[in-house]
């Protein structure tokens, strides 16, 4: 039983790792730069990859067809089987920084000019949705991870101090946490966002977003950590340690925090998807990171216009792309909680 669940757990971690790797290597996997426009192909539908051509021949190297516009109408796209663009792998393309570390311009796949390959279609400026989804994922996921880190750190410190020292600190902190938890979280985010200037550069907006979400989210983890620390403090081995002269810092480090470790990890697995969702929501509503930097949130914003939603369904790609991540994190949180429960017995 334990072996089986261990195996499932490892598979889960592996799957999540692959997903994150894909996002980390976004620059490599995406054929185009996120800002590259193609004004001749606004709202291009997704292109299919073919192995068998119109004559029925099988090709080892996959290819895509080009588009032609009947009657010079830019809004209608027909498959043009005369334009065949084979896929090449490890092609040179627009320069980028791989994992933000070193510069290169090799992309995983691409097609020769003048062809384009839009796996997920294109938006109103002819920008490749696939590339933008991958890049957007970098921003959204990073925002979620950083904000979760911030909230957890803050929550652990404050909750830990409250639980360990008790007394007035504990009371004040817990009342404060209650106030933060008394507001619906989205309203709270809005309130804090309202306090800040509206027009900000995307980079500053990103940092602002992370700061807001993280600072607002300290309350829930703080309460949980406080509980763990409170019960750990009362354990006899903590008393014994004090009995031979251990300092508070030593006790916190050696005895209390390891007990809290399980809770912290589970909280992390729960908070990251919540905060990614928060970024998506805020950017979607125009209060987060704005154009031209893609995030999963602001890419979905255009879908509020019903005609776009109806006619250009592929624009929902960023939303759909987020689902496996949410599934993964939820499963991870479940698994972590189960392991923590088993370890406590």
């Amino acid at each position, binding site marked *: 039983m334990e072996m089986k669940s261990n195996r499932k757990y490892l598979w889960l971690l592996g799957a999540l790792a692959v997903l994150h790797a894909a996002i980390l290597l976004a620059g490599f996997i995406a054929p185009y730069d996120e800002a590259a426009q193609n004004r001749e192909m606004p709202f291009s539908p997704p292109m299919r990859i073919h192995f068998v051509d119109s004559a029925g021949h099988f090709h080892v190297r996959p290819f895509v067809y080009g588009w032609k516009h009947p009657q010079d109408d830019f809004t209608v796209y027909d498959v043009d089987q005369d334009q065949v663009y084979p896929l090449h792998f490890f092609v040179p393309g627009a320069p980028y920084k791989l994992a933000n570390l070193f510069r290169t311009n090799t992309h995983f796949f691409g097609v020769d000019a003048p062809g384009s390959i839009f796996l997920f279609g294109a938006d109103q400026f002819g920008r490749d949705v696939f590339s933008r989804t991958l890049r957007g994922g970098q921003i959204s996921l990073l925002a979620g991870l950083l904000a979760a880190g911030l909230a957890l750190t803050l929550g652990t410190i404050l909750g830990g101090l409250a639980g360990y020292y008790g007394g007035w600190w504990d009371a004040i902190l817990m009342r404060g946490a209650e106030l933060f938890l008394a507001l619906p979280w989205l309203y709270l985010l809005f309130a804090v966002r309202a306090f800040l200037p509206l027009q900000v550069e995307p980079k500053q907006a990103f940092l602002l977003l992370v700061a807001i979400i993280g600072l607002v989210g300290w309350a829930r983890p703080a309460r949980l950590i406080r509980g763990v620390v409170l019960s750990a403090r009362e354990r006899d081995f903590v008393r014994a340690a004090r009995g031979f*002269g251990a300092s508070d810092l030593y006790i916190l480090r050696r005895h209390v925090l390891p007990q809290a470790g399980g809770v912290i990890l589970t909280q992390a697995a729960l908070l990251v998807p919540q905060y990614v969702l928060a970024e998506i929501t805020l950017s979607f509503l125009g209060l987060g990171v704005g154009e031209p930097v893609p995030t999963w949130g602001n890419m979905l914003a255009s879908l509020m216009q019903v005609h776009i939603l109806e006619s250009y369904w592929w624009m929902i790609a960023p939303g759909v792309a987020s689902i496996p991540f949410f599934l993964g994190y939820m499963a991870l949180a479940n698994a972590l909680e189960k392991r923590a429960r088993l370890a406590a017995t």
Partner: protein
Amino acid sequence: MSRGECAAFFMNTNETIQSTMSAGVLEARGLLKVFTTQGPFSSGKASLRAFQAVDLSLYSGRTLALVGESGSGKSTLARCLVRLEEPTAGELRIEGQDFLALTGSDLRRARKKVQLIFQEAMSALNPGFSAAEIVAEPLIVNHFSRKDARDRAATLMEMVGLPGSWAGRGAHEFSGGQKQRLALARALALNPKILILDEALSGLDLSVQAQMTNLLVDLQAEYNLAYLFISHDLNLVRALSDEVAVMKNGLIVENATTEMIFSRPQHLYTQSLVTAMHTLQEGWTQELAVLP
């Protein structure tokens, strides 16, 4: 001569020990502990007197037992004697030094002299630690080097009858009795003068209790330790201690040699305890007699 007879030889049965012997390694006078439950935002105060007017003396190489039922304040007193809780009032001297007035590094130095062993070995040892880590912890905390601490830990384990090769095992791999030995080894790490055993043998099997009792006696003889043996088990008390103090509702109602307590208890409460013990024993022997 048994220990009790030795003591009786030296004193008057109707006087308490303190007045005829020299000052002990631990002297407590008039200790008082009152709990007030009043936090911010809670409704109303309530005060609870854990114990009061407690006078105790511990002597090197001798064992004082503290007897009483649960709730009589024994454990709180034990914690106060090592300053895990602060007494509300009273005087406490260890080797002549005012223990209650110490702070900081002075306190830390003085703390080494008196160590407490808890009842529940399970909760007194961090389950995530290895045996060596547990036993060596007092040394690490007091800035011994890792290597010295580990070597000393192995020695200490041998002292309490555990093989040194078990040092790497996790705490959860030890049985109840073995865990108490680890706790004992840990308590001895800093060469204390005084050991306070708070119901330390209570959770153990009879045979393990016997082994532990022998171990404690040997250690006491070898290192001239003073013991405060807190228990509600009068048989253990009789086997292990030189003097007995009886506690009821936070007050010490009688304090005399073991011999006196068991043969001629003065206080009503002590009498009832001793009678109960005898009755129980008689009942058992009667039962045993009936069995084929």
